[in-house]
């Protein structure tokens, strides 16, 4: 069977799925956990949780079809009747161990050691380093893990694939001996932690670093070709899309201080899998080869899942500042959009929490009797500081709940330094236990403060009047809304005075977050400015804002300008975004740009886009993603052309703004993908 056919069949199956993905089904399944908990009620709760883990892992069953190059597709768990579900609910209410709130996973597990010594080697490590309840829980979980792989071996044998069966049998104990072995084991690892420990978004991470040794060996011995490796990576990607539902993020990252053939293959594989996951990010520094970046742009132009470009030098520097050793600072992963965590050593909670900057602004406006703008600004920051304090408190509560009720033994085995410290990840065994929060609506905040200073403190509007306008969505005062939106400079327009107001705000966020140390281990609370979908969600629940944003309208995404502000084009937007220092935002600082398809249609055009990205990164930008307005999104966008105000029309010798065109012409242009110049 040729590769294209293999993948077409699998893609069809994945896209044609009816019902929920296995990830959700296994995450929400209770009966297996309950039975395991009941069977071991005499044991300490940590071991009961370990048995729940093991029971899940040993209950996993796999399917292997002839067109698949790896085994990894899991069957759904046995269905639960509503009565069973209710009984389990009741049981776990009374026996609350094994579940706790707060953000989980979002990490790339430690893999190098497993790939070197295999499960048997890991077991030996547990025996020599660990003791007590923790050691026992690790043994139990690791046993479950090994048995899971044995079940895969059986399934492969039944499916008539002795090669894969033999591979899995070996991997139950032995280290991988080939690229195929290693990739297979990485799949099992990520799957096992996600299902067994209930940790979401366990990601494959820096595949080019992890697998290069195996690849080169196999290449030298003739066991694998470049194309084989690419197909296997694509196969991995397909398994991911089968397992996970839409709307999440699973990340692979390539490049940075390690660029090798696999860096390219991980991107090329996207041409074969052609589905949502994973995102493949490129870590860019001065030495990044041009052709790797050009490949990423080709992938984007082909309409495939979007490589994002990360500022490797900035990120590594900041990780060192957070006391990650320089030798390890290059081995990080976005977890799983823009938030940065160190690979293999992370118990970092990301997006914990999201702060609604404009929501807080409005609260400050409601209660304000400030006599000057400086005073008001201080009131706003004080209100935000209270939110931050609350946020920290809540995260500490989650940590406490997790410490007292939750264990993730398999994730612990594969997170440095849990084994060395003889402590589960939920007890703080990981080397890195930061909490990363994220500030949503930065552009709207900046733009709104600018209007407030001039309208209220240097104009005739009172704070109460402005607040009422926002709360009533400017009803009856359309002209004021338009004035605030159109008559004031905005972040993204390259206005130096306005742009200069951003750095002091960022400095404040960073300084405030830096005051906190999480309990009990003193780990840090780090800021970010990315949104996932929260710019839409929080925007939907926030009234109008002084920058001229309507009630319910999304906030600006990440660290970029608000929608409709990019009239001056991407170079001006880049200048605004790079006017302040992003380096402290390890929680992620995202800048998304949107272009019509034809701006990516030739290698020449893509070179210009690459130059734009390079200037952005060299100018101190943290991360950028290019979104291509393809036909699918554009059809949806016909309902909200204001969300596409940043699209630019470029025709030789012609000038206009997309937003000025009549709705009919906008719509026509939106759907035009030939060489009309758009």
């Amino acid at each position: 069977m040729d590769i294209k056919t293999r993948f077409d069949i699998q893609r069809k199956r994945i896209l044609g799925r009816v019902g929920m993905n296995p990830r959700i089904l296994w995450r929400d399944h209770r009966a297996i956990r309950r039975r395991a908990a009941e069977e071991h009620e005499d044991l300490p709760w940590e071991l009961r949780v370990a048995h729940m883990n093991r029971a899940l892992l040993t209950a996993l069953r796999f399917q292997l079809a002839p067109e698949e190059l790896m085994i990894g597709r899991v069957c759904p768990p046995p269905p639960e009747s509503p009565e069973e579900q209710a009984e389990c609910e009741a049981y776990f209410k009374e026996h609350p161990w094994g579940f706790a709130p707060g953000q989980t996973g979002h990490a790339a597990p430690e893999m190098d050691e497993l790939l070197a010594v295999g499960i048997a080697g890991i077991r030996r490590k547990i025996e020599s380093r660990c003791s007590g309840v923790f050691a026992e829980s690790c043994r139990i979980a690791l046993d479950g893990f090994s048995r899971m792989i044995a079940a895969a071996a059986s399934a492969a044998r039944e499916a008539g694939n002795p090669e894969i069966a033999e591979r899995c049998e070996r991997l139950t104990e032995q280290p991988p001996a080939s690229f195929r072995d290693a990739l297979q084991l990485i799949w099992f690892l990520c799957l096992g932690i996600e299902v067994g420990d209930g940790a979401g978004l366990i990601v494959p991470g820096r595949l080019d670093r992890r697998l290069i040794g195996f690849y080169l060996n196999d290449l030298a011995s003739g066991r694998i070709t470049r194309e084989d490796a690419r197909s296997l990576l694509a196969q991995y990607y397909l398994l991911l899309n089968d397992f996970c539902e839409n709307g999440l993020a699973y990340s692979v990252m390539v490049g940075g201080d390690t660029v090798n053939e696999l860096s390219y293959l991980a991107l090329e594989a996207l041409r074969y899998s052609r589905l949502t996951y994973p995102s493949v990010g490129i870590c860019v520094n001065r030495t990044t080869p041009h052709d790797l970046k050009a490949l990423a742009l080709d992938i984007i132009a082909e309409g495939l899942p979007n490589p994002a470009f990360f500022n490797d030098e900035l990120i590594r520097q900041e990780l060192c500042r957070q006391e990650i050793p320089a030798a390890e600072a290059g081995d990080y992963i976005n977890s799983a959009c823009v938030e940065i965590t160190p690979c293999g050593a992370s118990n970092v909670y990301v997006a914990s929490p999201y702060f609604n900057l404009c929501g807080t602004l409005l609260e400050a406006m409601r209660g304000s009797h400030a006599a000057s703008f400086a005073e008001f600004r201080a009131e706003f920051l004080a209100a935000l500081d209270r939110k931050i304090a609350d946020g920290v408190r809540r995260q500490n509560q989650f940590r406490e709940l997790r410490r007292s009720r939750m264990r993730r033994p398999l994730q612990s085995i594969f997170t440095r330094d849990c084994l060395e410290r003889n402590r589960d990840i939920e007890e703080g065994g990981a080397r890195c236990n930061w909490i990363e929060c994220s500030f949503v609506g930065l552009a709207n905040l900046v733009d709104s403060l600018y209007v407030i200073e001039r309208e209220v403190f240097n104009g005739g509007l009172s704070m109460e009047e402005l607040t009422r306008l926002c709360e009533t969505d400017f009803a009856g005062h359309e002209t004021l809304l338009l004035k605030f939106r159109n008559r004031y400079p905005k972040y993204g327009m390259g206005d130096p005075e306005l742009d200069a107001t951003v750095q002091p705000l960022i400095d404040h966020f960073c300084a405030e977050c830096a005051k906190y140390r999480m309990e009990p281990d003193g780990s840090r609370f780090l800021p970010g400015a990315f949104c996932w979908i929260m710019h839409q969600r929080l925007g939907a629940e926030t009234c109008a804002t002084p920058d001229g944003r309507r009630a319910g309208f999304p906030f600006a995404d990440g660290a970029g300008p608000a929608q409709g502000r990019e009239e001056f084009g991407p170079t001006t937007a880049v200048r605004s975004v790079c006017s302040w220092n992003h380096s402290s935002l390890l929680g992620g600082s995202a800048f998304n740009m949107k272009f019509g398809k034809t701006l990516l249609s030739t290698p020449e055009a893509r070179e210009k886009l690459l130059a734009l990205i390079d200037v952005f990164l060299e100018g101190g930008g943290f991360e950028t993603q290019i979104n291509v307005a393809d036909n699918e999104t554009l059809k949806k966008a016909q309902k909200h052309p204001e969300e596409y105000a940043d699209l630019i029309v470029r025709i030789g010798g012609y000038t206009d703004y997309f937003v000025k065109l009549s709705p009919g012409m906008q719509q026509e242009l939106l759907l035009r993908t030939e060489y009309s110049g758009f």
Partner: protein
Amino acid sequence: MTGCVFAIQKFSTRDGPGIRTTVFLKGCPLRCLWCHNPESQSPECEIAFLAARCIGCGACAAACPAGCHDLAGGRRFDRSGCTRCGRCVEACCAGALEKIGKFLSPEEVLREVLLDRRFYERSGGGMTVSGGEPMAQFPFTLALCKAAKAEHLHVALDTSGEAPREQYEAMLPFVDLFLYDLKAADPVKHRTLTGRDNARILENLRFLDRNGAAVLLRCPLVPGLNDSEDDLAGIAGIANGLARPHDLTVHPYHPLGVEKSLRIGRRPALEMREFAAPETVDRWLAFLRSRCRCGVALN
């Protein structure tokens, strides 16, 4: 010294190599039927009205000293009394009224252009001066290009060729690339389509060609107007007749200029509202490629 500028467009990707900023000057001696920047033709400032943005608040009517704006019985903008004072533009918060044309010094323009210097450096880009016809404001354009060259920017000039030869001669040291329009070979047809014949235009082209200028030929092609095989053969003939091969780019007709005409209260000269069809464009490219010894590409 100032020039009348109606746009400074950043991240221009189709006005020469690399990422560029295009400076659009107001005023043009030609009146091409298909003009996609109709607001560039008159050298005077104008007021544009964008109907889709009007919220009917009447601020413009209140502000206008000459009573040009009227909301009663449907929105009406009577330009006959308009002095372009711009008070209505000031008063409109919806962005429905715009003043087109601003007087700027070469230094002011260059300062704006230099903001994107890092992008030019990274991409091999620079500044393009376009319009309208930049040579219609020759002293300004010369000063601007001189100043840009002093800053080591790559300078492109987008021109119709309809200007005195001495002016092109003076520009030579300060222009790295001429983007030169070729609309029709036949002088009678040229006059019908653009308002002027092409004698001087062709002379200037040959002058630039002889004097070592880098030239990119730009051919705006309008279905049914200047795209017959004879027309295209004529264009190819001109290109082939030059001493050096200069690449040629095809600029298919698009209707985006029609709306801009309506915004400035004019009827478009050409009521053609469709984009040139892809098959038509393919045909043009194939024909020109078969005839031209230079490279032929789509812009």
